[in-house]
């Protein structure tokens, strides 16, 4: 007897087969005439400058770190959630179960929320906002000149 998870494997094999099939058919059907121009990395029509594997904004790492913390806590909450509303346990213990499980969950979620508040307060959740700043740039071209041009070619 194939268990339910046997079908997971079946699904996975069927999926891999489908992807390979599609790519294989495309490989047979399509033309292949590569040249250096085609194989260059696209950069809006300019010559490609260096590699793309450069360092990027550090914010993304911080978001990933905070995510890992919360995701682990989330996974720990799943088993709790599936037994919390259990009517049989509730009736057997005359409601004590609900109070214990509820308080336990409340403390856990409170710690979770506290972590969020901490990250928030520390400014880890703030993305760099584009701000408009006034510059004291003085143009050598007097304003009247623009006005004259506008009037001349109006």
């Amino acid at each position, binding site marked *: *007897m*194939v268990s*339910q*998870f046997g*079908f*997971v494997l*079946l*699904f996975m094999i*069927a*999926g*891999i087969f*489908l*992807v*390979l099939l*599609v*790519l294989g*058919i*495309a*490989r047979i*059907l*399509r033309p*292949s*005439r*590569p040249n250096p121009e085609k*194989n*260059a*990395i*696209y*950069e809006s029509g300019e010559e*490609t400058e260096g*590699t*793309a594997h*450069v360092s*990027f904004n550090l914010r*993304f790492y911080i*978001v*990933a770190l*905070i*995510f890992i913390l*919360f*995701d682990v806590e*989330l996974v720990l*909450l*799943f088993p709790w*959630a*599936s037994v*919390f*509303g259990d009517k049989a346990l509730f009736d057997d213990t005359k409601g004590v179960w609900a109070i214990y499980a*509820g308080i336990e969950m409340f403390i856990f*979620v409170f710690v*979770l*929320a506290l972590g*969020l508040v901490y990250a*928030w307060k520390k400014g880890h*959740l*703030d*993305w*760099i*906002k*584009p701000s408009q700043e006034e510059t004291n740039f003085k143009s050598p071209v007097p304003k009247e000149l623009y006005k004259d041009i506008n009037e001349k070619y109006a």
Partner: protein
Amino acid sequence: MEFILLIKGLIILTIFALSLGIAAYETYFERVIAAYIQDRVGPDRAGPFGILQPLADAGKLFFKEDFIPTLADKGLFIIGPGIAMLTALMSSAVIPFGDTLLIKGQYIPVQGMDVNIGILWVFGIVSLGVYGILIGGWASNNKYSLYGAIRAASQNISYELAMGITLLSVIVVTGSLSIRTIVGLQHGIDWNIFYQPVGFLIFVTCSLAECNRTPFDLPESENELVAGYHTEYGSMKLGLYLFSEYVNMFISSAIIASLFLGAYNYPGMDFVHSFLTGKLGESFGHNLATVLGILVYILKIFFFIFVFMWVRWTLPRFKYDQLMNMAWKWMMPLSIVNLIIVAAAELSPYPLLFNYIGLAIFAFLYFGSRTVYNNKKSKL
């Protein structure tokens, strides 16, 4: 035993064909709906009403020349779209398309597999989906692709948290991780959306973000990043990326419909079932009622697919700081509050009533404290 295996195999094939077929026709609906909203004609050349357009598009993608950039990581470049497609297809395994079919005295559920951790399975596979985008974007060795991929990754993980916590509040009510059980508990019109409207809204928003749909389509925002993570892709590899996006859309619509709108449950289903079995006999009547349920489910799925497309032409794209603020400063706290309210209401004798009382108390506290805070600030 072998008979059941055969039926199961057929069901798996059908589900594959169904999710791929629906995904193909989503591209057609997308264009038709876009044309309708923008008051233009839309696709009308391939076949009557342009109904063969998806086939023409697929044919075009098959015959396109495909080149791999010299600087790209060749292996990962090919694996990327494959993973995206595979993860998209895998999650359709646990969608409960309908109730049971009665064949030769055996009840066979219309579902790829009814594992007892169904919803956790979908959640896990959807999280893996980001690898396809990340690998493809990194392997391209293109700056736009890299930015698109990083944006996609950090957006998906941010919205996944709020989605997971909302999922918890559904599980608290049903006490099971099996999607079939969750759906079964929403018999008739006892749908979860009435118990947790806030959870429903959070879940829909997060699904939009997880599918990288507008207004959350920053990974492929074409006016900043050319085409985002699939800039360097062409031919069927691009096809796999686009297709996986549409399959994901179908699956998230199906999950929303089964978690919050009761999937194949509809008001008056018991009456229909007893009427049909009474008139047409036990076996045929039962099967006909199940088919009706499947049609209702597909209608609900298409409604959500329509909403996804409708939103695309209604809301402008967010900026990145707005997107992150929304995920971490609005969705996360709101979903935690929602979880606490739902859990507390579940212990009360009237969950439905106490849910709304909880929400009202929260709204009162939030808006009250904001007014007091604003008044204080204006006095200073």
